[in-house]
């Protein structure tokens, strides 16, 4: 394999990993928690900017050494895992603030639009005030983690980074899987299906939604850090609202609420639908290429939703009756009731 093809493959795999972590986060909010977050990319951006300023060092240090071309409000140079941890924390904190502002007051499609608008306002602010994160030009020359310490060749480092992304994907997947099968996941689904019923059982929907929202925001922050640490530049154009819709499309195409379905959606939407047009024969004029690529993306998405409106692998109904029977006859009577509740909780 030629080395340029290997670089391309490594980049594609990092993108896939980033999209996977992000979409699992979005699915935690949207599929399991029932919060349709059209501003999701804001939390990814927060993670990316956090990673950037925690690795670039204080802005004054950049004034010399030919790096004074960008301005940002604050910076530090922290050792390896800390910038990633910082990105997760900031993604979570921003989710707490936005969640407390938006979630209790609005429902359904209003909530979705409010979140979209919050992300647009944030993007507009950063675009207009260059002293925050260098405005439209964005931050660049963001250091890659441990690049000097590992001492690998360019290609070797790329594959090592693919491995690192893979490990983070496995960890994230384990976390979302644990959450969605835990009592917390069951209660979140119950709130999603019928808020009043959940309330009558003494659950606090407001608190539960916020937990799902913050969990998703933390994963979004992590995904942003993983992305920006590899591509080493980040600007407002990297997180337009179309990026959010790519994630939403991946979750809907894959199957609302199902973590496995979402993984399939990530492979299909950003990767196959997004990259396949690159392999088209060069029939089209070069200046039209971007347009043709987007048209095909739209057609793929619509075609797919036509064939399978419910997604590739919709969320499965969870049945507890069988499991409970194993526990013994003494709880079988109670188990019958729980089984019925479980079936309801599993439907959309």
């Amino acid at each position: 394999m030629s080395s340029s093809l290997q670089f391309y493959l490594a980049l594609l795999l990092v993108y896939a990993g980033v999209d996977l972590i992000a979409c699992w986060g979005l699915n935690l909010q949207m599929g399991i928690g029932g919060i349709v977050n059209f501003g999701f990319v804001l939390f990814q951006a927060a993670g990316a900017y956090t990673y950037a300023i925690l690795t670039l060092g204080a802005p004054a240090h950049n004034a010399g050494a030919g790096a004074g071309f960008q301005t940002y409000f604050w910076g530090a140079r922290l050792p390896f895992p800390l910038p990633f941890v910082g990105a997760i924390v900031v993604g979570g904190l921003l989710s707490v603030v936005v969640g407390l502002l938006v979630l209790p007051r609005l429902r359904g499609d209003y909530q979705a639009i409010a979140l979209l608008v919050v992300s647009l306002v944030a993007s507009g602010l950063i675009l207009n005030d260059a002293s925050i994160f260098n405005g439209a030009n964005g931050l660049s020359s963001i250091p890659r983690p441990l690049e000097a310490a590992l001492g690998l060749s360019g290609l070797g480092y790329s594959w090592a980074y693919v491995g690192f992304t893979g490990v983070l994907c496995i960890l994230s997947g384990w976390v979302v899987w644990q959450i969605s099968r835990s009592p917390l996941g069951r209660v979140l689904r119950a709130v999603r299906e019928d808020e009043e019923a959940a309330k009558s059982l003494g659950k606090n929907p407001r608190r539960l939604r916020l937990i799902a929202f913050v969990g998703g925001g933390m994963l979004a922050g992590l995904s942003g850090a993983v992305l920006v640490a590899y591509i080493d530049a980040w600007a407002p154009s990297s997180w337009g609202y179309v990026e959010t819709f790519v994630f939403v499309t991946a979750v809907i195409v894959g199957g609302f609420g199902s973590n496995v379905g979402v993984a399939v959606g990530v492979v299909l939407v950003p990767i196959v639908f997004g990259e396949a047009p690159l392999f088209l024969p060069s029939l089209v004029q070069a200046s039209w290429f971007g347009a043709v690529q987007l048209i095909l993306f739209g057609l793929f998405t619509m075609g797919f939703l036509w064939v399978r409106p419910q997604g590739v692998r919709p969320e499965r109904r969870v049945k507890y009756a069988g499991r409970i029977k194993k526990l013994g006859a003494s709880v079988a009577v109670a188990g019958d009731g729980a089984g019925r509740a479980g079936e309801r909780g599993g439907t959309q």
Partner: protein
Amino acid sequence: MHLFLEYVGFGLVSASILALAAVGFTLQYGVTNVLNLAFGQVMTLGALAAYGVNVVGGDVWEMVVAGGLCGAAASVALNRVVISPFARRGLRLFGMIVVTLSLSIIMGNVALIVFGFGTFSYSLSTSSSNVLGMTFTGDQLETMALAVAGMVGIRLLLQRTRLGRAMRATSTDPILARACGMNTQLIADVAWAISGVLCGVAGVTEAISVSAFSVTTGDGLLLTIVAAAIVGGIGQPYGAMLGAVLIGVVTSLVGGYANPTYTDLTAFVILVVFLVFRPVGLARGVVSERGVLA
């Protein structure tokens, strides 16, 4: 004071364009419950149709008619060819948003390939006149007249005609409306058509207002239109008119006194404030206590 009036005057022109578009957007959303993100692309089509008429020598009113008809045709076609079939396949609200977004991406990029990246300008004779201390060009006065006529027309349609009552009924409870023997499919088509007329006309007036428009002009206005519709209370045409006036005038003042690059941002900040503190929108209380399209 003079400057203030100029900004208010310009804001009223923006508000007129926004009102035409936002009422069209919200009327169709109210009746069909589909959030149509391809709305901006239909606006662009209307503006391009008017450009065609302008090139062969039509006057402003012929251009507006062409824009409106083109918008209506495109809008009904969207519903018949894409939206309705997908709805019959059982696609729900958020799936449908993904469909209209894909549609918008496809339409925008096809337009880019067909009409190119360049800009178009109408050749129109301009005159200017002074009204209440505000200076308007003839085109701006026509834009405001069109908006007022459109708003009065929509009000009469919804309140005084059987069709208007049927649209309000479909909006409030489509199943009950069908059970009462209304042809809800036809009513939805009419809603798409009226929305398309307003959309096309808004596209033409926007193109006149910006003086040089491109294939991305309509889509660039989409989120401001959605903001006006939501500030007014989504699905409520009278609210959308108020929302359009509020957003049009405030953004013009901010753009004039502070920084022109903050106009879009101002519209979104107004929207966030409304969503957080008054999520039902302006319409409830100010205009009506009843339901959607009431």
